[in-house]
Each structure stands twice: as C-alpha cells, then as structure tokens.
C-alpha cells in the first residue's frame, strides 16, 4: 500500500537527503526504518505524509500519489494516517482528552461518537485517569501515549512513528513499543523510524536500513546492523 519508486530528495545547499530509494510496504506490516541520525529516516516520513515533495521519483499511498497532492488535498489525505513524533506535538492548550478528540473532530465525526471513543482509547494507552490533564501536566511517556492515542483513534490505515522513543527512558520506551505492536496486531500498518538498536533487535520484524540517504538493507526479520 506504500510504495517508494526511485525517490531522491536533494536540499539546495544541504546536499543529498535521499538517493534513489525503492521499497514497498504491504497492509498489516510492521516495518522499522533504521539508521543513524541524518540517514534519511525523517525525510522518508516527511515525503510519506506530504510535508515535503521528492526531487525525483514517486511516492504512493493507497490510491494517492502523494507527490502530486495539492496543499488543499493534504488534510483529507492525512486523515488516513496517524503520526507520532519524537517531540510529541500535542496542542498545549488542549487537555489529553481534547488532543485525542481533535483527530476525530477534524474529520467531522459526530460529538456522540467522540465522547464514546476517546475515553476507550485513552484507557487502552493507560491514561483513563488523566484525560483532563494538559500536556504540561504529563510526563514524557504519558505525553507520547496521548500522541499515540491521537494517532490511532480515527482508525488510520497506517501509523507512522518518527523516533517516538527518542526523548524517553528505557522503561517508557518499552511501553511505547509495546503499544505500537498492539496497534499492529489490531491490523494497522506501522512504520517506525528509530536509531535505537535495542528496540529494533527486540522487535524481530522487517527492518529497512538507511545510510547517507541510500537504502542499504531490507530484511524480513532484521537486526540493526550498520557496516
């Protein structure tokens, strides 16, 4: 359902971010994007959600050709995806409940459905008792769980996580990865970008390894190897 076809991304003055990258991700897969900082993991994610356009090549997501989407087509497209970031990106003036509800509100879902669904999902990520807290009243791990709840509440086809554990200690890292696995077991495709060797080696799932903007390895049950 996700296809990268000969994708390159060059930044004027900053060199090459991606060079001729090809891969395909099928529905229901759990794929890790591995590599050092600056290897191109984040660039792949930005291209995937249409935040940037490739210099060369094509990016497909389901029936969408992402690189051809106009600004005003992006919102509707992004409702098919849930994204989790390293820096959480929660709305600071909204409570945990409202942050999660927002993903449904933007899709125009009725209030009744929102009031029913949000507490369920927050319960699932273990924050049932902190629904009314604002982000600054939550720990890093809790914030990331709110972000995950927001990313999955509208039942997206794909959840993309960009270094979701980068700001977390090993204990919370473990929690977050468990959550992502759970989401994957429920049938959602998960794309996880990380440079955390431990995380990737414990997952024992498909690993796409990047180095200096090139895809150097793509293995069904991969390990984090950078040589």
């Amino acid at each position, binding site marked *: 359902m996700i296809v990268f076809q000969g994708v390159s991304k060059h930044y004027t003055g900053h060199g090459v971010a991606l060079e001729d990258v090809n891969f395909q991700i099928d529905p229901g897969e759990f794929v890790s994007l591995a590599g050092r900082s600056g290897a191109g993991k984040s660039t792949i994610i930005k291209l995937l959600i249409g935040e940037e356009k490739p210099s060369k090549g094509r990016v497909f997501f389901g029936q969408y050709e992402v690189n051809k989407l106009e600004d005003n087509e992006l*919102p509707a497209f992004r409702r098919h995806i849930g994204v989790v970031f390293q820096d959480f990106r929660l*709305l600071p003036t909204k409570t945990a409940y409202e942050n999660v509800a*927002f993903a449904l509100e*933007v899709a*125009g879902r009725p209030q009744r459905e929102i009031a029913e669904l949000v507490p369920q999902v927050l319960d699932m990520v273990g924050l049932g008792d902190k629904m009314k807290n604002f982000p600054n009243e939550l720990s890093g791990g809790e914030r990331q769980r709110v972000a995950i709840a927001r990313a999955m509440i509208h039942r997206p086809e794909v959840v993309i996580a960009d270094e979701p554990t980068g700001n977390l200690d090993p204990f919370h890292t473990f929690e977050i990865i468990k959550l992502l696995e759970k989401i994957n077991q429920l049938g959602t495709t998960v794309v996880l970008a990380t440079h955390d060797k431990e995380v990737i080696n414990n997952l024992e799932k498909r690993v796409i390894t990047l180095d200096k903007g090139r895809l150097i390895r793509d293995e069904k049950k991969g390990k984090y190897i950078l040589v």
Partner: protein
Amino acid sequence: MFTIISRIFHFGFKNFWRNGWLSTATIAVMTLAAIGFLGLIIFGVVTRSAASAIQDKIDISVYFNTNTSEDEILNIQQSLEGLSQVASVDYISQDQALATFQQNHANDPTVSQAINELDTNPLEASLNVKAKDPSEYGAINDYLSSPDLAPYIDTISYAQNQDVINRLAAIVRDVNIGGWILTVFLALVAGLVMFNTIRLAIYSNREEIGVMRVVGASNSLVRGPFVVEGMLWGLIAALISLIVFAPILYFVSPYLNEFIPGLNIFQYFYMHIVQLFVYELLFGVVIGGLSSFWAVRRYLKN
C-alpha cells in the same frame, strides 16, 4: 458543515480563554489602537464643529436704498433663495433694523435722542445671505452686483469684508482637509498596530498550526478558530475603549466648550454611543478577523 462551523466557534472561544495572557496582551494593544480610532472620530467632530462655528460667523449683508419697496426686496430674497449656492436668506426690515439699533444703544442717551429727533427711519432694510460653502460668497456677490439690481441696492458688505471672508473660508477648508488627512493617516497607523499585534499572537501559535495540519485539519478548521479569536479580541477592545473614553470626554468637554461655543462633546458621545460602538466594532472586529485570516495564511503551506 454545521458541525465544522460550531467546532470553529467552540475552538475559537476556548483558545481565547485558555490563551489568557496572550489574549490580555493583545486586547491591551488593540484597545489602545481602538481608543486612537475613537479619538479620531471625536477629533473629526470637534474640527467640523469648529469649522462650522467659523462658517456661521460669515455672511454677506445687502443694504437696500430706503426708497426700495418691501415687495421688491422680498422678490430679490426669493430669487436669492433660488440660487444653488445659497443656504439661507434673512430679511431684516427697516423697523427691525431700528429696533435692534435702539436696543444696542439703549445705554447711550445721545444716540437714542438723535434717532428720536429724526422724522423718518434712517436705517436701511437688508438681506442677510449665508452661503452653503464659504468659497461661494464671490459668486453670490457677483449675482447681487448685476446692473438689474443696482437701482435698489445701496451697499453690499462683501466688498468691505472680502479679505476676512476669504481668509476664514481658507481656514475652514484647511481644517476640514487637514482633519481628514490626519484621520486617514492615524486610522491607518491604528489598523497596522492591530494587524501586527495579531500577527505576533499567531506567530506564537505557529507550531500548533503545524500540529493541526499534520493531524489532518482542513484549512478552514485551522484558520477559523483564530479568526473567531481575532474578532473576539476586536470586540472586547471596542467595548473597553468606549468605557475608557467616556470619563475622559466628560472631563474634557467643558474645556472644549470654552474654545468652541455650542459644542458639547460629551453629549455628542452620549447621543451617538450606539453609532460609535458600531464604528468601533467594525474597526476592531473587521481588522481583528482579517488580520488573523492573513496571519494564519503563511502557516497553511504544507
């Protein structure tokens, strides 16, 4: 559609409330701008009434020979009233002129005695002509100076006062033009201050806008709440500025009245409060809303 609109308002109100400090600071600056705007409206009223106070003092009087009959004078009055430049024509008969004269010199026995010793009324009947615009006295004077009217007319005051009339007319014109230029210029400044304040407020929200975009919020749902917030800021700034302005005018009004007789600025404020509020509202809400609309625009790419 209805859900989206109601959510836009809901989010707008909530952001307004939760961004308490930002709202307070923005409203404070917008209130200053609104007070400036209100001050300009009042300034306009003051200059206009000052100008019209001067204008009221300008007129020309036509004095008729004593042998001109009243009918002839009234005919001329009618023809004058038919002129497009003329605002009003007052007829002062010989008897009225005498009565006024006697009243003015009641405390001067020599003058009243001298008048009483005359058999006939020596004072001439006159027409008092006011023009719509002070610059038009020349044209009225030309009309009165035509040969047809020459037999009836003794003197026209314009010739004597021409210099003063022209100078006053120039002052009235300058005050009006200057007032307008100042108003437009300062209104522009006030508007820009508001716009920039809102731009800064929205700049501090740029990351939030990015988050909304990533979650898949449509442009109108991202932008709408900010526009609602901007309009709320404008609304509250308009209200506060009126509340602040009332006591200031109350104290200033008597002093202004000394300079420009007949001008009661506080009363004007009180009588026109609804109209002024509507102006303020338009100024605040429109600029607030539009500024937000524009300021969010640049963050809606990607």
